[in-house]
């Protein structure tokens, strides 16, 4: 059976990725990209809402009396209670960071959701099935830009490679609970990097971890402070 903690890991990944991606709104390099990034952030936010609502329902089922809802989970947990992988919380960075991160994360989500969609938990399978279609578009979008940036100008190649090198170590954490997904992920990501004329980094010893146990980077606290500020300033209010 799926546990609350597993659902939180899934939901928090989507929520924090959406929060970071939405920071691009009004800041994208072209108007079409403003639309595309907001769209992807909206997809992720939608996934987060379904997953956190499921987590809340499951949590409530094990409790006496009233439990938490999606907003209580998003707005009233502290940093140590968030279960997202650190990759999702890293600062916005430049456009190469955003799109390489999307490639790594969406390619992971694609494998993950495909597995969950075929899994025994019906509610989770339905969520994953719907999300799979969205994520397929995210992967396409990220591939398109990885190619353009990697095989564009010298400047864009340099930035894309720097993003790949910076983010690669954070991808190991994604597969901690499901190591068997990494092979398919590598099979998807490596050819894209190759076609984009980008070096696939070596698998080094720096493999940041802890997100699934609530150990985050120092960036996470600031993200939550901003995200939760208004909600926490009005305890108990409805919106």
């Amino acid at each position, binding site marked *: 059976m799926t546990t609350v903690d597993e659902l939180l890991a899934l939901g928090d990944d989507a*929520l924090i990725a959406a929060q970071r991606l939405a920071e691009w709104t*009004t800041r994208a390099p072209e108007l079409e*990209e403003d639309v595309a990034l907001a769209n992807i952030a909206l997809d992720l936010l939608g996934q987060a809402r379904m997953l956190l609502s499921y987590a809340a329902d499951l949590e409530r089922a094990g409790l006496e009396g009233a439990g938490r809802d999606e907003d209580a989970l998003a707005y009233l947990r502290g940093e140590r209670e968030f279960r997202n992988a650190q990759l999702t919380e890293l600062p916005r960075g430049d456009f190469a960071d955003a799109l390489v991160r999307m490639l790594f994360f969406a390619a992971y989500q694609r494998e993950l959701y495909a597995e969950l969609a075929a899994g025994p938990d019906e509610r989770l399978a339905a969520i994953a099935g719907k999300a799979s279609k969205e994520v397929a578009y995210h992967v396409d979008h990220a591939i398109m830009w990885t190619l353009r940036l990697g095989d564009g*100008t010298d400047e*864009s190649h340099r930035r894309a490679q720097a993003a790949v090198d910076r983010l690669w170590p954070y991808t190991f954490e994604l597969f901690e609970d499901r190591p068997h997904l990494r092979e398919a992920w590598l099979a998807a990501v490596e050819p894209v990097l190759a076609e984009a004329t980008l070096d696939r980094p070596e698998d080094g010893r720096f493999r940041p971890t802890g997100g699934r146990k609530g150990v985050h980077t120092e960036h996470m606290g600031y993200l939550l402070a*901003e*995200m939760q500020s208004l909600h926490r300033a009005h305890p108990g209010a409805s*919106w």
Partner: protein
Amino acid sequence: GGADDYFGAVIAADGKIEPRDEMPEAYRKSLIRQIAQHAHSEIIGMQPEGNWISRAPSLKRKAILLAKVQDEAGHGLYLYAAAETLGVDRADLYEMLLDGRQKYSSIFNYPTLTWADVGAIGWLVDGAAIVNQVPLCRCSYGPYARAMIRVCKEESFHQRQGYEILHVLANGSPEQKAMAQDAIDRWWYPSLAMFGPPDTDSTHSAQSMAWKIKRFSNDELRQKFVDMTVQQAEVLGLSLPDPDLRLGEDGHWAYTQPDYDELFTVIKGDGPCNRQRIEHRRAAWEDGAWVREAATAYAKKREGATV
């Protein structure tokens, strides 16, 4: 000449001018100015509301707001496309926005100070925009009229969402209700000013009316907005900050005109956020230059490869 005759006949018959039709140069220029200003307003207008995406107080509100700001980017895209049918280039229009040669709606030069401002913008600012824009769906230039039909549909959706935000706040805690009232107090007069100077002072109106780009005067539209809004405010249980509002015998609400000196200060660039809005847009544009260059270089390489 024959071209002018054709143009005049179409206008007289309430028909549509299309991109390939000949048209007076002044009509073309006037339309470019107006459509570009409208597109710029959508783009700059993303900022005040975008300011609250990261802090929206519930996940549902966050999703609605993000979708709304995305719609504005979409409106910008349709409108730039409509302007491009008149023989201008989006990049050039963009440049004219950044260097101040073209304007955008002054309403976006005020800051969003609280969450309630998101509601007030939806209700009042989008509400005023709709009143302004609905007649444009019948504008004589085809591509602009068609873009406006789509824009207006989404805008009225946005207006309802803004109203709903305020409705929840007005029925919430005392702090929430005060927040809603405060936002209305700050956005009311700037919203009235969105209809432009009084008819007696308006410079472009007469010619635009003749060309059937514009169909109502500034004051007619403003009155329509006031009449509509007074009733909605009553339902909200919030007040509009005008002690002289009263229903006249003609069925219209008498109101105090906004402070046009202030409006002109903002139009001339000295409002609270003019510098910030343009600076933000310029930074996004400049920070993205290497990305656009990469896309161009990549496309050229592909072209080379397929030849």
